[in-house]
């Protein structure tokens, strides 16, 4: 790294990490009051929520995660968290693809 070089997009990344921490602290406090409390899931939720406060994305992911919380607590247990982790990554990708599809309105070939 040369003397005059900066790491590109560092401000954006730091701002994003700040959002993750704030969301994590808030959600950790709120969900700790319920029987659904699970720190790993709250962290994952914070990471994905911090990408966007878009209501469409927010509603979908929160409802999905609430269902996932119950499944995790009742049936899956600790090991099942890994599969839930897989599920959340896929879910996030799918939401992002739909979101970008709507946002960019790509022109289709005639």
């Amino acid at each position: 790294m040369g003397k005059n070089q900066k790491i590109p997009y560092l401000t954006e990344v730091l701002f994003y990490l700040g959002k993750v921490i704030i969301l994590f602290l808030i959600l950790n406090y709120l969900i700790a009051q319920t029987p659904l409390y699970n720190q790993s899931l709250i962290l994952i939720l914070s990471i994905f929520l911090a990408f966007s406060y878009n209501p469409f994305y927010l509603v979908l992911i929160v409802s999905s995660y609430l269902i996932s919380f119950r499944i995790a607590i009742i049936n899956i247990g600790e090991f099942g968290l890994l599969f839930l982790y897989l599920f959340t990554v896929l879910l996030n990708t799918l939401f992002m693809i739909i979101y970008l599809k709507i946002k960019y309105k790509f022109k289709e070939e005639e």
Partner: protein
Amino acid sequence: MITLFQLIIFWILFDFIYIAYRVSLLIIHKRKLRFHKHPLISVLIPAYNEAICIEKTLTSCINQTYPNLEIIVINDGSTDETLEVINSFKKKHKNNLDHRNIDFKIINQKNQGKAKALNYGKKYTNGDFLITIDADSYLNSHAIEKIISYFSSEDIGAVAGNVVAVSKHSLLGYLQKIEYELGIHFIRNSQSSLGNVIVTPGALSAYRKNAIKKFEEGTLTEDFDSSIRILEKGYKIVMAPDAVCYTQVPLNISDLIKQRVRWQQGGLEVFSKHYFHQKTFSVSLEWTFLFLFGFYALFSKILALFVIPLFLISSDYSSLSFFIISFLVYSLFIYGILFSIVAHYSHDKKAILAVPLFIIYYHTIVLYSVLVAQILAFKGGNQSWEKIKRYHT
């Protein structure tokens, strides 16, 4: 709390399925048929501020062993001396161009980006086959002859060239060089066995003119976008490992991150654009594998970066050190396998020695770029055709 060890188990799940799929395709790979005719080939070279390196690109084009060429250079509103360099090249090599019967056209347009430049240039083409070359890349003298020979049947819509990174004796350049080799010999070669090469690289690719109505516009990675469109039309895309093209790569971290962010963002856009389009079964399978294991599995690795601080905060140093050791052992093993495959095909045995450095490079620069691309995708604001620093090659 998910433990860091569980994260590694999760990565193994991704990596092993993906490697097994790729290796099985490499084993069945057989493509021997060749096409030996010499139809007119139109070479398209879009250029934006490439004064420093375009002469070498053009020289490599006119020194091809292939006999029937027309060369079309599209100056995309360059603000440096690119146009002057192209004009003086044409004058300087007039005799050679006449002698070899090469029609050399120079076209100007205001700056509109690479895809529009290619489409504008395509209007002036007369050949049934198109070859696109980046203005910062140069070809091996047999490259065009070799790449065209892969159009052995009517269903082959495009052929991807073998892009070799010019490392210029820099460590960062060398790491990118072996990364490119990994992409060519491990991913594209295996995709080629079923004719499903997902990305035709901008640096060197050949297209059957009927297969590509226009180069796709509106995304940051027009080469990925256009090749997916060709596959959706039912054509096959294969790889030509012997059609070699040398390309410049960023030689500083800042430019490298910018380039990778653009690729990742472009990849996300192309996935969004084509995700719900109809594809053949084998293309859908390749698409799904690329999506799950090649493209998005990266993001699962980023999550570990978020979990590590929690272990530091909770002073659970034994778990953290266990994670780091497990991670290093696992990474050395997995990249050892991959680089052995690369060394086998590229005859570069010392690539295996670079595994530890490659692990650091990959898990910092590449993962950082994936994260940034995700953040920018939601933030909005498209990147333009951003320039990386060019060097004399």
